[in-house]
């Protein structure tokens, strides 16, 4: 995804899947930890006030692909499985949620059988049934989920649903039995990441009465501890307690603390920071403005929380239109950009690390490597402007006009201006096109807009190499003339696609070899094709108000908003 959208996983879940394929039934952890332990009712109550400059589009959990709302979905929606609601690394573990236990995996990894919990109700009072599960999985296709063609088309009947979403039945792919309360999902091929994909908000179980198109600003009932009371993309979101919620698994969906969670839009990030300093707000969603960081890190140090992320800020270049349909032009920009300079605009070297690879450090498959560097070495040393200028001259693209499309907040705009300056310095005529975050992400995906280069961010959906490499740069993710074409570079290489498929297959049996292959693909992608300029791996800096307690950070979904204490 981006920060205004999310990403994926590996490690423990892959191991669990490998065991499952061998016929072992994984079960839920006996005693949940972290966020899930010992609910302290003395801290329950109050209104948590979250602040964001603007909304992030639709509220539909099967459509929205933004961190901003995915953080809220953790407390409002559940899937059959979900990521464990605990702090740090254990938060990557998938646990049963609406399912009684982890699924029984049979048929060589192609059949998953879930038993649905009984007695759970949606926030509108309707009970959760196996029919809701089936309709929710069908709905993923009907609403043209951004990843329906890359994640969920592995379900039997999925390819037909991708082709004709309106008539999607997943016949033979999802089989339910109301008598035994079971849901059987049949896959076309084994998929090491299928449970992760079910555990993200796209896999939310919604009432079968939910609209079969993007619900937009109309909240859909969920099963979480909270429900959306109202949503206006211009003014904000109000979440209140779900009156039908009872804890069935604290590891999957713990009870929340605030009685109400508000996310207000419309203020500038500067005034958001001031509001949190003054106790008028509790948390700032947006990247903190650089001119406030110094004061915050001295006077408000106790209210700051910093965490490393598996994420990338990068410049996707459109490989299908000039000038970046020319490899030398793409390589030139890779040589020219000073990633350390860009980091200064993000808040300094304590808040981000320069990167040359598609996979973030610490991620499965990541290998330290830097194809475009000053001098040699696997770690980034700095830009090489001479090489960049020579490549531009050799490419024959010198003098071309280039527009950089960025989000119009202060940090993104500043990085955009820096990139503009670099492009001008190596011979292009660059302009910056700032757009609201409500539309920038879809705008830069749609080939109709002829975007040459943009500034984008990718934050893991779950920790698996494919989430960066395959999701962002495979042929299956390039959909011309669509707002859902996450492969913004429009990069499609059949040979690399075949390697990605091999790596995915290897994940089932030999994760180590699979990761090594993902690392090779990453290096080959950058050295031979350079569809991006990777800029830096950011860290998450959360600024909370003085009254907020119980800050907990998930590697998967970041700060748990519903676990914060405001009293």
């Amino acid at each position, binding site marked *: 995804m981006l920060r205004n959208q999310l990403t994926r996983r590996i490690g423990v879940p892959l191991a669990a899947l490998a065991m499952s394929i061998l016929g072992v039934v994984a079960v839920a952890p006996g005693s949940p930890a972290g966020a899930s332990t010992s609910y302290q009712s003395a801290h329950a109550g109050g209104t948590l006030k979250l602040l964001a400059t603007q909304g992030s589009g639709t509220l539909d959990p099967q459509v929205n692909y933004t961190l901003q709302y995915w953080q809220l979905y953790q407390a409002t929606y559940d899937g059959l499985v979900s990521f464990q609601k605990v702090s740090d690394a254990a938060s990557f573990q998938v646990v049963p949620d609406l399912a009684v236990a982890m699924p029984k995996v049979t048929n060589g990894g192609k059949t998953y059988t879930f038993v649905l919990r009984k007695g759970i109700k949606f926030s509108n009072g309707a009970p959760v049934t196996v029919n809701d599960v089936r309709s929710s999985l069908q709905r993923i296709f009907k609403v043209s989920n951004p990843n329906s063609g890359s994640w969920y088309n592995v379900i039997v009947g999925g390819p037909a649903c991708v082709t004709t979403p309106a008539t999607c039945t997943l016949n033979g792919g999802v089989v339910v039995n109301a008598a035994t309360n079971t849901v059987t999902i049949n896959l076309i091929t084994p998929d090491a990441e299928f449970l992760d994909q079910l555990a993200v908000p796209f896999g939310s179980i919604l009432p079968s009465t939910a609209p079969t198109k993007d619900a937009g600003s109309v909240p859909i009932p969920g099963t979480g501890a909270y429900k959306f009371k109202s949503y206006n993309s211009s003014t904000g979101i109000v979440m209140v307690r779900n009156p039908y919620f009872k804890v069935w698994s604290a590891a999957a969906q713990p009870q929340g603390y605030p009685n109400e969670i508000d996310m207000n839009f419309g203020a500038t990030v500067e005034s958001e920071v001031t509001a949190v300093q003054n106790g008028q707000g509790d948390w700032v969603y947006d990247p903190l403005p650089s001119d406030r960081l110094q004061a915050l890190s001295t006077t408000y140090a106790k209210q700051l929380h910093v965490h490393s992320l598996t994420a990338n800020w990068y410049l996707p270049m459109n490989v299908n239109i000039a000038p970046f349909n020319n490899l030398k032009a793409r390589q030139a920009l890779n040589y020219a950009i000073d990633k350390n300079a860009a980091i200064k605009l993000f808040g300094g070297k*304590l808040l981000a690390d320069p990167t040359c690879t598609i996979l973030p450090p610490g991620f499965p498959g990541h290998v330290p490597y830097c194809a475009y560097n000053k001098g040699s070495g696997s770690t980034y040393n700095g830009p090489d402007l001479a090489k960049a200028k020579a490549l531009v001259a050799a490419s024959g693209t010198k003098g071309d006009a280039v527009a950089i499309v960025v989000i119009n907040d202060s940090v993104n705009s500043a990085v955009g201006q820096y990139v503009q300056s670099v492009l001008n310095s190596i011979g292009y005529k660059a*302009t910056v096109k700032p757009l609201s975050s409500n539309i920038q992400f879809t705008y830069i995906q749609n080939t109709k807009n002829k975007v040459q280069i943009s500034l984008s961010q990718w934050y893991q959906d779950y920790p698996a190499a494919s989430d960066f490499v395959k999701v962002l740069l495979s042929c299956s993710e390039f959909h011309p003339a669509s707002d859902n074409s996450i492969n913004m570079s429009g990069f499609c290489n059949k040979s690399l696609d075949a390697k990605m498929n091999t790596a995915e297959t290897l994940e089932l049996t030999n994760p180590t070899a699979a990761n090594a292959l993902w690392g090779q693909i990453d290096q080959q992608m950058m050295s031979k094709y350079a569809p991006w300029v990777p800029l830096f791996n950011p860290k998450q800096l959360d600024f909370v108000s003085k009254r907020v307690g119980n800050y907990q950070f998930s590697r998967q979904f970041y700060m748990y908003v519903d676990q914060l204490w405001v009293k």
Partner: protein
Amino acid sequence: MAALGVVLFVVTACLLAPVYAHDLAHVDAFTSNLNGTIRLNGRTVSVLQANTQGLGFGVTPIGPTWHFTNYFLGADNQGRDVFARLLYGGRATLLIGSTSAIICCLVATVLGLAAGYFGGVIDWVVSRVFDIVWAFPIYLLAISLSVILLTSGLNIGPLHIGAGSLLLPILIIAMVFVPYVGRPLRGIVLSLKEREFVQAAIGSGASDWHIITKEILPNVAPTIIVFLPLMVAFNMLTESALSFLSIGVQPPNASWGTIINDGLGLLYTRPWVAIAPGIGIVLTAGALNVLGDGVRDAFDPKARLRGSI
């Protein structure tokens, strides 16, 4: 005279922007300088300085050095010399303000003369166009035009103006103000047309061109001259507002509005980035207004309130 002096001083200073940037400060006002350093009091100092206190987060541009040739007003978040950009920005703001005022007054004069003198269909068409333009709040109209044209540029037949060109804000601002000058001029022409000397010229068989250029225009000219400095001030303010909203002058070009916008993100640490262009706008617009009043008084000392917009 004081107002004229201020205007001349500002104009001269801004015209000398390249001299200051290239020959005195030795800076490039339009290129990011995130890794730049300067020599200050014998020490090498980074233009963007990393925080060393507390948790150490944040990078802050260097503040005013008050050394005239060395980042006098400090740097912006791209590490660019604020004073150099202030001078370049003044050039853009004054250029847009004055050029758009001239275009506005020229177009308004032609339309006002034509509508007032010929009357009939021409008057009806021109007046309705004025009505339509006047019906929109002026900033809303300017913002709407800017958003559209700055995205795709202006392409009318063989005329192509790029999205980043200064011509776009000039034309947009000129056009939205035309009715504000054209309407009063039309009224004056209507009045002049009934005067004896014009009627005498018509009666003697003089051509329309002769009557307009020799009889009416000279009598309208003082009003136009009074309008001009006032429109420069108005248009400067409009340009600054549009640029502040990122829909006027486009980066890396500077105008006083864009510099205020740049300074918005630095208000807490480097307030001079926003304050300095603000002072420039207030000083210049104030001086132009006083100058406009002076010119009006010089032409028509008995009607001090007439002609104000």
